[in-house]
């Protein structure tokens, strides 16, 4: 019998809800973004985000159920992101999920946001072969993960300082381009020369970890000493440096673990140059590349409901005293 799970996601600046059947079929996926609210602050303001989630969470859940043509009590589970993320923001989703679980007498399940990002790919490509290398790149995370099977991961490396998306935001802010930095830099870079400036590729040859604070500083310093540099060239050269490091390491990881393919996940996976470089690199290495749609890269609740289907079968539901954990690590087995 098919199982329908409601997913709820409020870990950062998107309030999202979705209904997914059997971890596979998206019956609805609703995302309410706060990006315009935070734009004037140049980044996500935790207290502002938490307040906005309180207002949005029930309308978003209501719409997700309506689109899926479901009544709450008919759900098989309610899954909610309980970490990592902004604590105040997470607590809104967790509180709502628990209240719905109590009121409708439906099992509750706490979901790891990072693990959910990995499962976004499976919603669009159910037959992804493993072992699979996943490059999880977002505003808060940069991780190189090997997925050996469902719910089986090895974290090879992560960022030692800034996350990739954070570097985009900070560069954009320092150069006065606005927020969010990712899409703005991507757009400008399309008009620029990516070989104009050679920015450093930190730790490209050694280990599995990443560091992006150096390239960010180089961009800021370059702009200070050469204020006449066209921002298009700056954006393209910076973006190239980031994509170069990410793709080079992911390809090396795939070769090392004998992966069948490389998959992108997280908000930075929407970056067009990163997608292009990964596609080319995989083609050259005889690997499958999987590039989820923009909707599946950024935060959404369909991925929460998708991973919940696997987790529920493996671990069973969570208890009602479920907490929220801002630094919840990727489950590493």
């Amino acid at each position, binding site marked *: 019998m098919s199982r329908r799970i409601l997913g709820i996601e409020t870990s950062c*600046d998107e309030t999202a809800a979705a209904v997914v059947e059997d971890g596979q079929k998206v019956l609805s996926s609703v995302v309410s973004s706060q990006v315009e609210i935070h734009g004037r602050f140049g980044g996500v303001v935790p207290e502002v985000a938490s307040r906005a989630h309180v207002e949005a969470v029930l309308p978003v859940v209501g719409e997700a159920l309506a689109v899926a043509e479901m009544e709450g009590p008919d759900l098989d589970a309610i899954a909610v992101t309980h970490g990592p993320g*902004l604590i105040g923001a997470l607590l809104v989703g967790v509180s709502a999920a628990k209240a719905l679980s109590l*009121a409708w007498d439906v099992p509750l399940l706490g979901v790891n946001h990072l693990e959910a990002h990995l499962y976004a790919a499976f919603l669009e490509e159910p037959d992804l072969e493993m072992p699979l290398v996943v490059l999880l790149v977002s505003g808060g995370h940069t991780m190189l993960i090997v997925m050996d099977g469902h719910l089986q991961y090895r974290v090879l490396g992560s960022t030692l300082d800034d*996350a990739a998306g954070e570097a985009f935001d900070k560069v954009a802010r320092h150069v006065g381009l606005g927020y969010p930095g990712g899409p703005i830099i991507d757009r400008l870079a399309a008009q620029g020369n990516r070989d104009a400036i050679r920015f450093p590729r930190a730790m490209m040859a050694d280990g599995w970890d990443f560091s992006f604070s150096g390239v960010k500083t180089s961009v800021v310093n370059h702009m200070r000493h050469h204020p006449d540099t066209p921002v298009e060239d700056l954006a393209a050269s910076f973006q190239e440096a980031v994509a170069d490091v990410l793709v080079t390491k992911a390809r090396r990881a795939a070769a090392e673990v004998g992966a069948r393919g490389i998959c992108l996940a997280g908000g930075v996976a929407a970056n067009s140059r990163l997608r292009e470089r990964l596609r080319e690199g995989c083609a050259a290495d005889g690997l499958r590349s999987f590039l989820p749609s923009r909707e599946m890269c950024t935060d959404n609740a369909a991925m929460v409901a998708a991973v919940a289907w696997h987790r529920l079968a493996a671990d069973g539901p969570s208890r009602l005293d479920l907490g929220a954990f801002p630094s919840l690590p990727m489950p590493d087995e």
Partner: protein
Amino acid sequence: MLILAIESATNQIGCAIGGPDGILASAHTIRPRHHAESLAPQIRFTADQAGIGMADIDVIAVDVGPGLFTGLRVGITTAMAFAWALGKPVAAFTSLELLAAAVLAGDTDILSVVDARRGEVFHARFRPTATGPERLGEPAVSLPADLAAEIVTESSEVVLVGDGARAHIDHFVDIGCPIAPRPFDLPSARTLVTMAASHPHRLMDPSEVSPLYLREPDAKAKFGNSPGGPP
């Protein structure tokens, strides 16, 4: 009419079930920073003690603050979601009127003072009436010294209540203001049931409930811990 009351505006997390005839069951715990963990199990426990099912509840009463932002959001989100899921109305009360209602006696004004942290207090003044405390003026946030000066100017007799008065007791003892005993320092879910039972006209749709923050958010962007969103 069966009321489920949810209280988490301060360090105290509370839940009570009852109606016009009294309280069937209640539970209160003090677990700072654990509002979200404690509240839902407490609701189930209280319902079990009262011997009722969730569907038996007619009204959800909630404290909308002012108080601790995170605690408030946990309580309000829980109340809204619970009411919405069951198709029931919400009765919203401020922490300040709940404090006043619990100590109301005679005809002396009550000044409710909730700890706002950062050396400030949330406060409002109430006058006793036959139907409960009637608020005089808008709830506000002030420095305790300024509030004490205001009390002196007003010159009419007033009794203070709340953890804000307790935390800054020196300011108020100096001007000779009595403070209600310690058991009344924090708003309770039991008072919420009583207030909701005696104010049936205060019912609203869950979508209309909103927290009373009384303070603008710190507009400081946070980097490095945002797990997602656009790059």
